[in-house]
């Protein structure tokens, strides 16, 4: 590794045009708004993974304008700076990037504007949307899920699958109270290779890691983050490595791409939201849509 003290500082980079992440922006901004009075457990049990991936929602958040604000700040963070943002920064009008603290402040502004009030017994807890802990969870999770979806789709491209047919579950950020991911891996049906949690892309273990029925804190996706506040992610494993550890036989074919990576593209998500919501209502007669809010059906 280079010793920073021994090497002179590099010259500042040349100014290049902004490279906004348009695909990520569209992915984040095209999700449907789903106000709901259901809690996390109920949402996990009743909504399909595809519907959750097509929606912006938060457990027991019924105010559409707040969800709209969450969707907008997520899309802005994911997109990164545009030419207009650079011009505004150069003119001293605004910062270049939407920071995490500022994103949370914008959502908080909307909560106050919409007269949001937490339940008396939830005030000051993680269930209170005005707490920094809840806002941090919302912004961090939404940003991570949008990035996770994009990485997942990219990892399943045929050429990438051919060269990197497997991936490893790895820790990318330390946790103060880490979950036992090796145990989760085994519960999800995974096999370890010399202690490494490696599986072919598209293997059932990736869906299982995000399955609410198995892990109540799971997010319902076959890609990271698999659970709230998780410091785990995935790392490509090459064909040579996969063969060396015994995960693949030499000469075997690459895994087939997950068809969801094609059907759950950003455009399709936006088109499918209403259809997916209708399916959820048809499959769960104990919930209903009242004034645009998903609620338990009154008996």
């Amino acid at each position, binding site marked *: 590794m280079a010793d920073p003290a021994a090497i002179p500082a*590099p010259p500042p980079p040349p100014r290049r045009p902004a490279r906004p992440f348009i695909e990520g922006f569209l992915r984040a901004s095209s999700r449907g708004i789903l106000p709901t009075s259901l809690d996390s457990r109920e949402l996990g049990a009743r909504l399909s993974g595809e519907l959750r991936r097509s929606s912006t929602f938060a457990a027991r958040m019924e105010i559409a304008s707040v969800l709209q604000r969450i969707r907008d700040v997520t899309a802005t963070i994911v997109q990164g700076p545009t030419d207009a943002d650079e011009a505004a920064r150069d003119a001293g009008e605004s910062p*270049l990037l939407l920071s995490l*603290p500022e994103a949370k402040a914008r959502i908080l502004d909307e909560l106050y504007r919409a007269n949001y009030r937490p339940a008396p017994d939830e005030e000051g807890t993680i269930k209170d949307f005005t707490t*920094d802990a809840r806002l941090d969870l919302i912004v961090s999770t939404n940003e991570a899920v949008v*990035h996770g979806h994009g*990485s997942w789709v990219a990892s399943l491209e*045929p050429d990438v699958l051919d060269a990197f047919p497997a991936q490893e579950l790895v820790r*990318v950020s330390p946790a103060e109270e880490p979950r036992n991911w090796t145990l989760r891996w085994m519960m999800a049906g995974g096999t370890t290779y010399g202690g490494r949690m490696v599986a072919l892309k598209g293997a059932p273990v990736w869906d299982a890691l995000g399955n609410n029925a198995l892990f109540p804190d799971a997010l319902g996706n076959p890609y990271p983050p698999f659970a709230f506040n998780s410091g785990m992610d995935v*790392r490509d494993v090459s064909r040579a490595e996969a063969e060396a550890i015994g995960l693949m036989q030499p*000469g075997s074919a690459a895994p087939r791409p997950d068809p969801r990576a094609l059907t759950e593209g950003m455009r399709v998500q936006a088109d499918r939201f209403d259809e997916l919501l209708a399916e959820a209502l048809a499959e769960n007669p104990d919930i209903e849509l009242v004034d645009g809010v998903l609620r338990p059906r009154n008996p």
Partner: protein
Amino acid sequence: MSYQVVIDTARPSLRKLLRRVEPKALNKIIARSALRLTRDRFAQVATYMRNPWGKPAQFWKRMYRGSRAESSSYSAAVLVPREVALHYYGGTVRPTGGRKALTIPANASAYRRSAKSFRDLVVVVLKGRAALARVQERKGRNKGSDKLTVYYWLVGAVRMKPNLSVLPTERQYQAGISRDVMDYFSRGTPPRLPPVG
């Protein structure tokens, strides 16, 4: 940052294979390999970077997840979030948007939180240093005096030194990418090839 991938084409079988491989597919593999190296470094940096209160910083996890590979028939690249550049190249951060000062968290409650989200902070000057603080009236036998809790220091600019260790070196990129490309072309199963004819 640029690098060269040197592929050993001494073997006739490899030369034959390379003539048929689409540059687009090769560049996709190069970009993906470089992405893995970059992300590995971010995960490594995350193990020793702490916030001022000793807690693990979430920053490098966000950088890991926000990085992506891009490629075409003529180029391969890894795009990392813009914030990485400040760490790698260093620089001076100044307030923008009409603000006159940057807010530097002074206690753990202020970390990752915008000053305006507190809604009750006031500007104070302590030993010549401007700060945003909460002023609370003391109760009990100390009633009559105020308790001051500083949440942010107000500064005109912050200078960050360059830190080259947040990215792999060019030599590390070259070695890792070359290894992945050679593995790809040296394996028993031929790589995906375009239809002949």
